[in-house]
């Protein structure tokens, strides 16, 4: 698989704050990546560095094999849709959809028109006077219809209501299936997008703590529930990600279990409970915090 992005030792500091801390990873072509993390973890900064909108303090970035900074050849193939996108004074959506095709060679007007209808976007109204959800929809439509080989979505769907978000996920999947491209979604609404992702990168306080295939990650944790005795007996020496309990009951999150181990657990009267991607990432994020505390 070709790498469209290669990052090595990337760091970005704003004065005394280190937003991105010695980050290294690779993004492979034509996959949907989730860039996940809490608010302020460094997702937006990272995306701004990858798209040449901000300048790295140190480290290297290669997009399509070259540095993206002030590089028209690379940036023409990239679309970066931000949540806080501001539009020129007195612009209406129709001006955005009129100008976007000039900059994105793969722009599909039919697709854009269908999306405008799907999101019920009034194209002839001043953007200044539109609701947050409608403004977000503009960004989403540009990101989808641009068909840019590398498309970033930086939480642009936060302003959208649940129905509109579902429309976005469905259209994204559908279009990605028929016209593959590399998509990077950043969000802190992990559960909503969990099934869309093929690969997950989790960033916490500027560092990457998870960089994993989504299915592998999903299979890497299970919650074992039952009486404390039975649970502890089953868990034995396995690594424990999280422990919860009331009275004589315990719920312990452990690493992935094979089908046989699952059967054994059930036979022992234990219940195996799902660990959503969101919960898994929260558990691992907490763990990493502890690691940092210990090493500090």
């Amino acid at each position, binding site marked *: 698989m070709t790498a469209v992005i290669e990052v090595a030792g990337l760091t970005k500091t704003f004065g005394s704050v280190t937003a991105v801390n010695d980050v290294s990873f690779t993004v492979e072509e034509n996959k949907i990546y989730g860039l996940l993390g809490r608010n302020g973890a460094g997702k937006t900064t990272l995306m701004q560095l990858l798209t040449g909108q901000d300048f790295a303090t140190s480290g290297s970035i290669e997009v399509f094999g070259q540095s993206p900074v002030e590089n028209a050849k690379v940036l*023409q193939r*990239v679309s970066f849709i931000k949540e806080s996108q501001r539009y020129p004074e007195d612009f209406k959506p129709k001006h955005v959809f009129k100008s*976007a095709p000039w*900059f994105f060679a*793969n722009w599909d007007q039919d697709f854009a028109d269908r999306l405008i209808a799907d999101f019920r976007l009034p194209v002839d109204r001043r953007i200044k006077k539109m609701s947050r959800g409608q403004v977000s929809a503009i960004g989403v439509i540009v990101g989808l219809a641009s068909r840019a*080989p590398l498309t970033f979505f930086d939480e642009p769907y936060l302003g959208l209501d649940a129905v509109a978000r579902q429309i976005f996920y469905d259209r994204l999947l559908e279009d990605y299936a028929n016209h593959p491209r590399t998509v990077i979604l950043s969000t802190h609404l992990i559960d909503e997008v969990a099934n869309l992702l093929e690969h997950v990168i989790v960033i916490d306080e500027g560092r990457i703590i998870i960089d994993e295939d989504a299915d592998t990650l999903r299979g890497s944790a299970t919650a074992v529930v039952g009486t404390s005795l039975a649970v502890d007996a089953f868990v034995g020496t396995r690594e424990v990600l999280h422990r919860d309990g009331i009275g004589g009951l315990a719920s312990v999150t452990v690493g992935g279990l094979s089908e046989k181990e699952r059967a054994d657990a059930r036979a022992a009267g234990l219940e195996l409970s799902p660990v959503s991607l969101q919960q898994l990432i929260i558990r691992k994020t907490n763990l990493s915090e502890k690691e940092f505390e210990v090493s500090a």
Partner: protein
Amino acid sequence: MTTLTDHAPATPLQRIVRVAKLHLANPWTTVVVPWMVVGIIFAANFAIWWIILSNLDPSEKVDAGEGLQWSGASMWIFVYMMVVAVQAISITFPFALGYGVTRRDYYLGSALAFVGLSAMYAAGLTILSVIEEATGGWGLGGRMFTAAYYGDGAWPERLFIYFVAFLFFFFVGAAVASVWVRWRANGLTVFFVVLGFILIGGAALLTFTASWYLVGNFFAGAGFLGSYAWSLVLTAIAAVTGFFILRRATPRA
């Protein structure tokens, strides 16, 4: 599954031109509104001339006519263009970055748009000034487009002056906005403080060394047209400065 067809990448010229187009994507702000306001200001002035001038004796009319040559009615449009430039840098710049435009292409494309708009407005106002002359001040002895600021030469001179003046306001506006985008409020403050020191300091220096006459001689020597031509130097400095400032600017929220 179809693969993406990667159309041939755009040439540098195409990239610059499409940025210029971007500034005109919504012609309302850059074309329609300015002309509308010129029209409204003209109409207001016309009404005033009608009321005042038509009630005067011929001799008084001449006096009034002389006063009108200092009419600042046409000044507004220059300030508006400066605001257009400021918005182009402070708002449209981050937007264009989202379209994958490089800072270099953005500045060059904007410069192209500024030059184009300057040419259009200079031409338009010159035509209006010719009509003003030909009709003896719109039949009322009024003056707006042939104000003394634009010299008393023939229309080619006026065209040059208008053009140069527009360029000045565009690029100075863009340069100041670049300072804002790059260094925000602090940068702007520093900029104006430094500018203030230079201007006041310069004026103080000239006063204390009684050298104002040198300034006067300079402009007299250059002549009316020449003095305006010198403003091109300032415009060029603003343009180049703006470019280098914007090159490292980031669209921070």
